[in-house]
């Protein structure tokens, strides 16, 4: 069964088309990445899955049903813009939000306690939200999104503002939830996260779908056409325009896109000849980052 099915969904704001006849299918139990540049329509699309916004055209089905009150209770939402009631106590906010999703008070209390302990916020349960640091508030926000054990969890930029430690914790929780059968839809700019986690992706640009499918399959379709090289010393070997189509520098590391048919061994030979010291030389499928940029620039052209 599809967790989410969008058919011909459109949303207009005044004269701007935010989402343009979008068809989207998210299978149950998958980890789905919704990608796109700023203003592409990701947040609008996610909001329509939550009935925060109502489409101007098209239909939205969640777990086979048109979106309704009951279905809202099955979905959890972590929006991009975070916020809670600043002057309420943490436990009270969590109880209230869970009650809105149909969780009884006693049960909500129990689960809240478990989550707070897990995320190292146990002593903050009775404090007012405003007394917590931003990072802690984000953790509470996450708990609020999952306390009612949703079947579908929608996360809009979940990693923004998180330090590496907390990002790791979040990632682990997300994978664990996926293992328990929860469907997760993730919208983010952080391609590395997507690459490591997502089964399926959908790339949106200016309200329309540009790319969709199983991540592994997409990458495979490009083949191994990128070299990841870590080196020090002379970088002249990278100027082989006959073999190298483009390069992306990351300080000590460079990703080089090979021209079709180019032999990576040639480049290695040249590098050694130049006198560069090679510490990593890896032939890989193109990083999602590159695919993203390529597709978006092509769509713009």
């Amino acid at each position, binding site marked *: 069964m599809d967790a989410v099915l969008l058919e011909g969904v459109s949303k207009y704001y005044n004269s701007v088309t935010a989402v343009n006849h979008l068809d989207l299918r998210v299978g149950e139990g998958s980890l789905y990445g919704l990608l796109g540049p700023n203003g592409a329509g990701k947040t609008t699309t996610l909001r329509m899955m939550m009935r925060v916004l109502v489409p101007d055209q098209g239909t939205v089905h969640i777990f086979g049903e048109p979106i309704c009150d009951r279905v809202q209770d099955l*979905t959890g939402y972590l*929006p991009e813009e975070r*916020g809670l009631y600043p002057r309420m106590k943490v436990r009270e906010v969590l109880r209230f939000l869970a009650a809105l999703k149909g969780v009884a008070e006693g049960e909500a209390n129990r689960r809240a306690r478990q989550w707070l302990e897990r995320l190292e916020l146990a002593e903050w349960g009775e404090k007012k939200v405003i007394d917590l640091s931003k990072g802690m508030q984000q953790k509470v926000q996450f708990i609020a999104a999952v306390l009612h054990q949703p079947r579908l969890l929608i996360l809009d930029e979940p990693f923004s503002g998180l330090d590496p430690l907390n990002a790791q914790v979040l990632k682990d929780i997300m994978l664990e939830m996926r293992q328990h059968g929860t469907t997760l839809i993730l919208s983010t700019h952080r391609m590395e996260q997507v690459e490591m986690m997502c089964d399926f992706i959908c790339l949106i640009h200016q309200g329309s779908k540009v790319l969709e499918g199983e991540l592994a399959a997409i990458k495979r379709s490009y083949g191994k056409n990128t070299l990841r090289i870590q080196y020090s010393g002379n970088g002249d070997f990278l100027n082989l325009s006959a073999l190298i189509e483009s390069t992306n520098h990351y300080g000590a590391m460079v990703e080089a896109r090979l021209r079709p048919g180019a032999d990576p061994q040639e480049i290695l030979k040249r590098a050694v000849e130049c006198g560069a010291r090679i510490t990593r030389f890896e032939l890989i499928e193109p990083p999602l980052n590159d695919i993203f940029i390529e597709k978006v620039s092509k769509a713009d052209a």
Partner: protein
Amino acid sequence: MRKLWLVAKREYLVRVRTRAFLISTVSLPLITLAILFLSLALARSPQDHPLKIALLDDAGELAGSVAKRLSGKLPDGRPAFDVTRTINQPGQPAKARDELRAELRRGQLDAYLVIPHDVLQGKAGEFYAKDPGDGAVTAPLRRALTEAVVARRLEQSGVHVDDLPKLLRSVDLTLVRVTGQGEAEEKGQTYLLAMALATVLYVTLLTYGIATMRSILEEKATRIVEILVASIRPSQLLAGKIVGVAGVGLTQFLIWVLTAAALGAYGSAITKAVQPQARPVQFHLPLSLLGYLVVFFLGGYLLYAALYAAVGAVVSSEEDAQQMQWPVTFLVILAFVPFGTILHDPNSPAAIVLSLIPFFTPILMFLRIALEPPPFWQIALSIGLLALAIFGLIRFAGKVYRVGVLMYGKRPSLIEIFRWMKYS
């Protein structure tokens, strides 16, 4: 429905458990009691010793008559007035006055009365004292002087009267208010009470209307509205909010009504305790009036809450809110403008028409009821119109809320707001 109730409960508890609520609820009865006690305490303490008074008689042979009639007694049995001296037609009136004034200043006298020589023709007597305004003293003096002068006038006309005081006793007037329904004895505090209650109504309407607006604004500013709207329909969210805040207002009113009822029952006992001599203050608050107060608070709140909610839904910042709430607040204040007209004639055509306009009904119709209950059909009509207006405005507010609550940033123009209405 259940979710609406959850939101209402949260809005209610979050306000009722604050210190601010406690303070504002307690302050009204407290201030009323304070004013009561203050006025009692500051009232002149009654006479506790005989007033040493001198009589300067320029008219001749009246002083004795006056002195005879100053026969009142203090609660402990001593005479109220002690006429220490009588100066009959002094050759040097100015010098006599100076003497008396000096004695007064030295404390040998409490007061002196000058009876002018033409008092029989209507010239006023003169009362000199450090505190000449004390009615408890001037009333018996006035009465004594009047009786003495009238007795003399009668004698001069050839009429001899035995019991002049009994004949001259003034007649009291009982004030009875005749209404369409019946008659009720006028207690004299109606104006004050009506004004006071109308003001209470006005203040609470503004307070709770703005509270509704603030609640919406807070949810927008903190962005929590995003997850709220993902869990509950916007219309239910708005309705729950309005119900919750209304509950807070009603709770406060209930506490005040109970306090007023208690004061009504025990008011006289309290005043007796503070000032045994003073006349007990009467609190006359008919139950029906209090009932109407609650009805018009609810109606007025719902009406204005809808408007304030629309403002809250449209703006994104506190500054914008301050600006945009003015038209609504102004509407409430406008209800005060016809106060004078209505106080003067609660049943004039102008008063009737004004009190039927839904925006003015809560305050003006209530005022009319407090002063002089209008025919029931007028009250029913006003409530009916109010209900219709509430219905329309809440629908309007709901539409504006649905769209506006997720729009952060630039304040939308009126045209845009109209477009939002079409969206929903």
